[in-house]
């Protein structure tokens, strides 16, 4: 077991290199050049540039810029340079505004992580009881109704729901139950008492959290349900019943405990999504999160930022997968990872 874990950890490194290299290639091979974007970005706003009599000057300036950004070297070299910096935890500077990539990510990370943590917590909070109820009452018509509703929830496109929420619940012509944008009220002041800050913040992230959560808890409750149902048929349950234990104890103590295990392993799978922001929700609710950062960076061909995000996200994913697999192996003795037996 330990050897397996160690092997996996060592193998993570080439995988990580592979991922980042692929991302690197995609970004660089894509048409569109950040230097050109910078120089001629005025075109987007319809601003005429200066005359090109000094075309040579402009070309020189572009080349100097490319040199400065290291874009004139062959791709593998560029990758090596980037990776070298990465190993020292230096993500480089953004092409757009020269700020350190890590700073840009760092200032948005708390928002995204908070949003995701709250969302995950709520998801589990709702999904587990829902799943339990669903499995216990399986086959009855209220449960059937519940299942259908859950599936319908799961099938609602998030951008639709988000837009509808924005229009109908966030002010404008209908209800102003929640704020339409941002994380803080207009007159926010860091000197507010903590409780008031918390209330303000929660009020602002409520709807984004709802949008992120409804599909997740729908899916998770189904997993819970099937997990419970599977375990309900195991022999030890029959034994427990035969022993005369009350049904409630059987369910809550025995079945539930075993059913929760895959739920927990799934948590490890959720690790990478912690820092993944949803571009759609962030755009609709104007949340300054990682999703928006990534999206803008792709559009602006801001390679360092894109690669930085890729690197962090893939690192977390790899760790998450490893944890999930390890936990699973510990729990389920049926699975062996060695070679096929002869």
């Amino acid at each position, binding site marked *: 077991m330990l050897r397996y874990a160690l092997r996996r950890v060592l*193998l*993570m490194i*080439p*995988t*990580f290199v*592979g*991922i980042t290299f*692929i*991302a690197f290639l*995609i*970004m660089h091979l*894509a*048409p*569109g050049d950040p230097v050109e974007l910078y120089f001629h970005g005025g075109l987007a706003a319809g601003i005429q540039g200066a005359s090109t009599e000094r075309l040579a000057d402009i070309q020189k300036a572009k080349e100097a810029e490319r040199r400065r950004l290291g874009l004139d070297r062959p791709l593998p070299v560029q990758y090596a340079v980037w990776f070298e910096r990465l190993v020292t935890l230096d993500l480089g500077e953004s092409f757009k505004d020269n700020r350190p990539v890590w700073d840009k990510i760092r200032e948005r990370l708390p928002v995204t992580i908070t949003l995701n943590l709250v969302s995950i917590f709520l998801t589990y909070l709702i999904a587990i009881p829902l799943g339990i109820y669903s499995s216990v009452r399986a086959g009855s018509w209220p449960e*059937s109704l519940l*299942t*259908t509703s859950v*599936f*319908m929830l*799961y*099938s*609602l*496109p*998030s*951008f*639709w729901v988000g*837009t*509808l929420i924005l*229009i109908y619940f966030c002010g404008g012509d209908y209800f102003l139950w929640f704020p339409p944008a941002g994380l803080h009220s207009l007159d926010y002041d860091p000197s507010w008492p903590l409780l008031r800050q918390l209330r303000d913040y929660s009020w602002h992230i409520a709807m984004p959290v709802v949008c992120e959560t409804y599909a997740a808890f729908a899916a998770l409750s*189904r997993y819970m349900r*099937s997990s419970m*149902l*599977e375990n309900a*048929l195991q022999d030890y349950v029959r034994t427990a019943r035969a022993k005369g234990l009350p049904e409630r104890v059987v369910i809550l103590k025995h079945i539930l405990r075993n059913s929760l295990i895959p739920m927990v392993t799934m948590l490890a799978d959720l690790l*990478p999504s912690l820092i*993944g922001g949803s*571009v*759609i929700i962030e755009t609709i609710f104007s949340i300054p999160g990682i999703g928006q950062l*990534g*999206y803008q960076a*792709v*559009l602006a061909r801001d390679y360092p930022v*894109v690669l930085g*995000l*890729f690197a962090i*996200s*893939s690192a977390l*994913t*790899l760790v998450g*997968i490893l944890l999930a697999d390890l936990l699973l192996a510990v729990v389920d003795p*049926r*699975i*062996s*990872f*060695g*070679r*096929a*037996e002869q």
Partner: protein
Amino acid sequence: MNNERSQSYRALVWRQFRKNRRAVASLYGIFALLGVALFADLIANDMPYYVVMNGRTYFPIAIDYGARLGLVSWPGALRGVDFKKLPNEGALFPPIPYLPRRADLSEESFSPPTARHWLGTDQLGRDVASGMVHGARISLTIGIVVAGIQLTVGILLGGLAGYYGGWVDLALSRVFELMLAIPTFFLILTVAAVLPPSIYNVMAILGLTGWIGVARFVRSEFFKLRGLDFVTAARGLGVSSSAVMFRHILPNALAPVLVSASFSVASAILAESALSFLGIGVPADLVTWGSILAVSEQNTFAWWLAVFPGFAIFATVTAYNLFGDGLRDALDPRLKV
């Protein structure tokens, strides 16, 4: 002869499935959608089924099919005409006499549902009902093709990893990790922003980034199954590895894979509509459910642009999800009484 005992697996599953009314309803829904998608050209088209001009009868829709296949060419009299404006001695138009991509400025734009346009029009006067019908074709095609790609790649790679284990599994698992670790949406965004917009590209991207779930699932199924007796028996009899994999193990693992196929279709449709909504990857003059929905985001008073396509996406995805769920319940031998 006792028929019950020798009932085939398929019949057994079907009987179990039928008991689940919700799942059966979703199956009917899927059939209806498939019907709409197949016959879209006959349901919504701005060319008539037949038209009589100068004593001669023409079948424009059929001619159109033929012309597109290269079999026939348009008779001179009919080239490029607007059938609705042409004087004729008789013509029969499909129930929705519009094509979704004709931006007709003479039609009222942003019209709410009326007798003329049953589901309203968008900003350019394009009929929404027609867009829904033809959009069904696009959504279903994308859903099925994407799911197909995901299944094929996933079964292949997952099966190999699960059956052989050892180094093969180690290497393939690294590939899985690689694919899994790449933030998919990000990747899709990047690639789609870069490639010329076309639904083929969208299908390829979605297919090639979404097979990991299937692969991992198949892999764990193969792990469980390869240790079972029937496999040992087959190997003992000298059956080759690939035959063991694909003719013995796979059929047993197939059932749950079909379940995930259904979910794949659902999520592919959702993903495509999200991309359409963001305006990525889909050509500008292609009308899809997501693209109609996108117009509604900027024009919130035009509720018909939000309700109908949103509902269509939602209903389709629900149908596929319910079907998959029903299939899963029907296939699970342990859930039978």
